[in-house]
């Protein structure tokens, strides 16, 4: 049996499968199905400084091999997370990543400071959420924006800091480099691509927020390309995601350059996906005589 352990910025994940932020809540609902210790880690639903109601419904639309969501960071606030969700999560035997989003730079810093006092294993900076008016993606689509916020948060964050990148940019490698130079320990990508669907009967967007974030298998080729681009550009580890739905997709993203893989949308179709993907990876590694899953990272050979 291959070694599935991956070490990222000093955090030891027992396997490279991490639940993607916003698709797994704070873990309670999935823990009815299997012990969360089956997962390498959990990136929790994005939290903000204060509680947020999120966007009006409908928030979900199906698209070919994908979906749009416009949840818009509905969450109980960082303090509630620290008090009510984190202690339970930390007892589940998996690494816990806090995903944070803010309206302002100060929001981000203040959350990073609070979380540094807690047992969270890593902080993921969500500067790429397309579904909120303020904050989120506006920090994430320019190098200066990414550099500014990363450097600021870095000062307050005593946890390993992972910056989550938006795919809605012309050159994601430059953005990743900006995050790296400003002190990010890890980058994760991709967040959702902005999309829209229209109900041709009502002539209204299907989502009440008009636009939403595209995720699922449809975006997988874009994720593979971007992970590769970023892997070649930065020295810090890359956590890959975007449309992974099978063990072979996970392997593919790791070959492109990911040190670990987050999975989101596939959970809606198959909540047991993390178990199946881990199992499949294990078999693949054994069949190919690969001892450590981390040997896959970046092992793709360009033509």
């Amino acid at each position, binding site marked *: 049996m291959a070694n599935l352990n991956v070490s990222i910025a000093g955090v030891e994940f027992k396997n490279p499968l991490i639940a993607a932020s*916003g*698709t*797994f*809540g704070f873990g*309670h*609902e*999935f823990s*009815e*199905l299997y012990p969360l210790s089956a997962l390498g880690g959990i990136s929790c*639903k994005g939290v903000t400084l204060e509680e947020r*109601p*999120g*966007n*009006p*419904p*409908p*928030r*979900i*639309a*199906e*698209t070919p*091999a*994908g*979906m749009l*969501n416009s*949840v818009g960071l*509905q969450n109980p606030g960082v303090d509630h997370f620290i008090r009510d969700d984190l202690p339970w999560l930390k007892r589940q035997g998996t690494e816990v990543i806090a995903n944070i989003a803010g309206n302002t730079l100060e929001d981000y810093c203040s959350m990073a400071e609070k979380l540094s006092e807690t047992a969270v294993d890593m902080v993921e900076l969500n500067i790429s959420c397309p579904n909120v008016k303020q904050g989120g993606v506006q920090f994430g689509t320019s190098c200066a924006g990414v550099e500014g916020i990363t450097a600021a948060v870095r000062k307050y964050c005593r946890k390993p800091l992972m910056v989550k990148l938006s795919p809605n940019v012309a050159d994601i490698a430059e953005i990743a480099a900006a995050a790296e130079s400003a002190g990010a320990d890890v980058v994760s990508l991709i967040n959702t691509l902005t999309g829209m669907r229209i109900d041709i009967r009502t002539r209204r967007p299907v989502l009440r927020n008009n636009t939403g974030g595209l995720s*699922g*298998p449809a975006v997988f080729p874009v994720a593979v390309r971007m992970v590769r681009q970023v892997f070649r550009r930065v020295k810090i580890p890359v956590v890959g995601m975007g449309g992974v739905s099978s063990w072979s997709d996970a392997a593919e993203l790791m070959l492109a350059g990911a040190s670990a893989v987050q999975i989101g*949308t596939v*959970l*809606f*179709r*198959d*909540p*047991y996906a993390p178990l199946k993907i881990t199992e499949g990876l294990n078999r693949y590694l054994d069949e190919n005589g690969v001892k450590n899953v981390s040997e896959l990272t970046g092992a793709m050979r360009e033509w």
Partner: protein
Amino acid sequence: MKKYDVRSCTILRKNRLTGDIYDVTVEAGLLAEAARPGQFAQIAVPGKTLRRPISICEIGAAEHTLRFVFQVRGEGTAILAGFEPGEALDVLAPLGHGFELGDTSRRVLFVGGGIGLPPLLAAARTFGANASVVAGFRSRDAVILRDDFEACGCHMMIATDDGSLGHHGLVTELLSGLAFDAVFACGPLPMLRAVSALAAERGVPCQVSMEERMACGIGACLGCAVSLRGPDGAERYGHVCKDGPVFDSSILFL
């Protein structure tokens, strides 16, 4: 038994009830034991990213079956309608918060419109002859589940839009003469509004089953938001898949 689980459920029986409404009974093992009236299932559709939420119409606790009655509305339900006995559906169930049945010796009223009927059947069964069921359909051809409700002993009244069966007009026009201690409803929004207003007027509780577009179906993704009136009167978002699909109508903004 887990609160809910995924299971490959073999189809035992399948019938077409009307032009586009299908009636499917599956072997559901422990899922059936755990299920309660008003809960729902998320059924996977080959080739589709998201499961489709379908209410549990009946629970065969002894035979471990679940019955689903659904209408073809788009691509997903069309694919589900193509499944035949012997094939298996991939079902995540039972989900959500069903009807609070309370004292089953009360006189209760069930109000359903068209495809809003199926979610009411399992609950109506527990009330038997104490239940009056007022059901509205487009026309005589669109009537479903009449025999099923009657077999439960319920007192059944039908209204059709075109008068081809029963009362010619809206279900709500049949309600004024009835006496009841609680209401259970599912159907189009205008109907729910009228029923909930009547219940409020009479001072009796009213539970309604709601719909919203879903991803996870279990409360993790926060996709299926619905505006709820908090205890303080303030509006906040709850979630149809976890807090519902059945809500007390007094906390909904219908």
